[in-house]
């Protein structure tokens, strides 16, 4: 067991588990965000404030951060080691037919990380540590953060923010088309029957998640700007 953590399959196992965990998180995140599309923001504000003040989130937040950190640390380590496994490169670049995403997972991950930093500065940081307008739906008895105002303000105010979020979703889409089924293959949950099913589910998942996240800025552009 001690060798497990340093073995190639062991390290891939952690990539897979953290990847699966992050994919689960994306589903929850998208579910909450989809409330942005309904009504004038009350629904979303209630949900966002519920998530923000829920004691369970105090536990989940660090676990989520750890999930990201482990995924990124292992990704960097594995990618570096794999590059070192071919000290002398080929003159003619490989033209074996494989999916583009599968060869560029680290680059896609890096782009997602860049997006993530911008995203955290925009929302997470402002909600946690900044000042944010308050709103009340019960005549002032309880005050909620007006997160809806923050989100819609950003998306209708600066078109390039919309572009960044749509781009982020595209990178995520590509990462997930490979990552989804690859994670199952890594933990051994795959065979010659399941591989085509998993690849199909990967596309469905990637389209729903990336499409969902990309739709939100598009929705605000259509609603307020056009």
């Amino acid at each position, binding site marked *: 067991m001690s060798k497990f953590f340093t073995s190639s399959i062991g390290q891939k196992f952690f990539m897979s588990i953290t990847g699966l965990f992050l994919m689960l998180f994306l589903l929850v995140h998208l579910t909450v965000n989809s409330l942005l599309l309904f009504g004038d923001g009350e629904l979303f504000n209630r949900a966002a404030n519920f998530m923000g003040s829920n004691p369970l989130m105090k536990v989940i937040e660090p676990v989520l951060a750890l999930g990201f950190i482990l995924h990124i640390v292992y990704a960097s380590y594995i990618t570096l080691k794999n590059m*070192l*496994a071919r000290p002398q490169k080929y003159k003619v670049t490989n033209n074996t037919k494989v999916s583009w995403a599968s060869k560029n997972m680290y680059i896609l991950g890096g782009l997602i990380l860049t997006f993530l930093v911008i995203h955290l500065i925009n929302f997470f940081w402002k909600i946690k540590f900044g000042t944010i307008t308050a709103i009340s739906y019960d005549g002032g008895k309880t005050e909620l953060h007006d997160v809806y105002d923050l989100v819609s303000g950003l998306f209708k105010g600066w078109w390039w923010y919309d572009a960044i979020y749509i781009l982020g979703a595209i990178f995520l889409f590509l990462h997930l088309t490979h990552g989804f089924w690859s994670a199952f293959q*890594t933990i*051994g949950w795959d065979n010659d029957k399941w591989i085509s099913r998993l690849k199909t589910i990967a596309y469905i998942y990637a389209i729903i998640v990336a499409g969902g996240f990309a739709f939100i800025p598009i929705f605000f552009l259509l609603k307020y700007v056009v």
Partner: protein
Amino acid sequence: MKIKLNIWKQENPKAKGKFVKYELDGVAEEMSFLEMLDSLNEKLIKEHQEPVAFEHDCREGICGSCGLYINGRPHGPGDEIGTCQLHMRAFREGDSITIEPWRAKGFPVIKDLIVDRNAFDKIMAAGGFISIDMGQAADANAILVSKEAADKAFDAAACIGCGACVAACKNSSAMLFVAAKVSQFALLPQGKIEAKRRALNMIAKMDELGFGSCTNTGACEAECPKGISIDYIAMLNREYLCASFSETE
């Protein structure tokens, strides 16, 4: 037809090595790729030049020694073939063909296009075997094997250890080779006894020898001359994970 060749030449394992350009006339379509190289070497010898060193043996796709990286693909254009099964009809008059040795830390170049694939033998020695009683030959049908398991094990056993999977993989991972070797035993009753130790030891050896880890690009499967499926990699992952979690040593 007349073709242009750009071939990696390297005096010995320590030498720097470089690409050398050759032109070859009179190449017939029905020549195999290796016969084309033979005719190049005959020409070079006649001209008192050093011939190109390349490995070959069976010339019928069963020994796995003819590994050449041709125009960006192990064993060149065409699927499920060794270089010895590639014919010059895959090329056209005036084509330029770049030929490189397998490139991987685990496969150092010995000379020109020949690499040292001893690493695969070392991985096999780490666990790619079964233990049996000596003495009288056992009754062939004493141990029953299901048809499904026999078929699957047989498909895995088709691996000829050529190393194309490593050569094609962007990570120089030997996972398809190891997966085939682990599975061919793990699927059969005779191989079950040592299954855990086998998976653990062969992977440890693979890692130690400097092969990369698998990121499931599937390039190995696409270039394997024997069509070994990455299905076996999932099986190997399963074997390895179960062995790691239940190992008591």
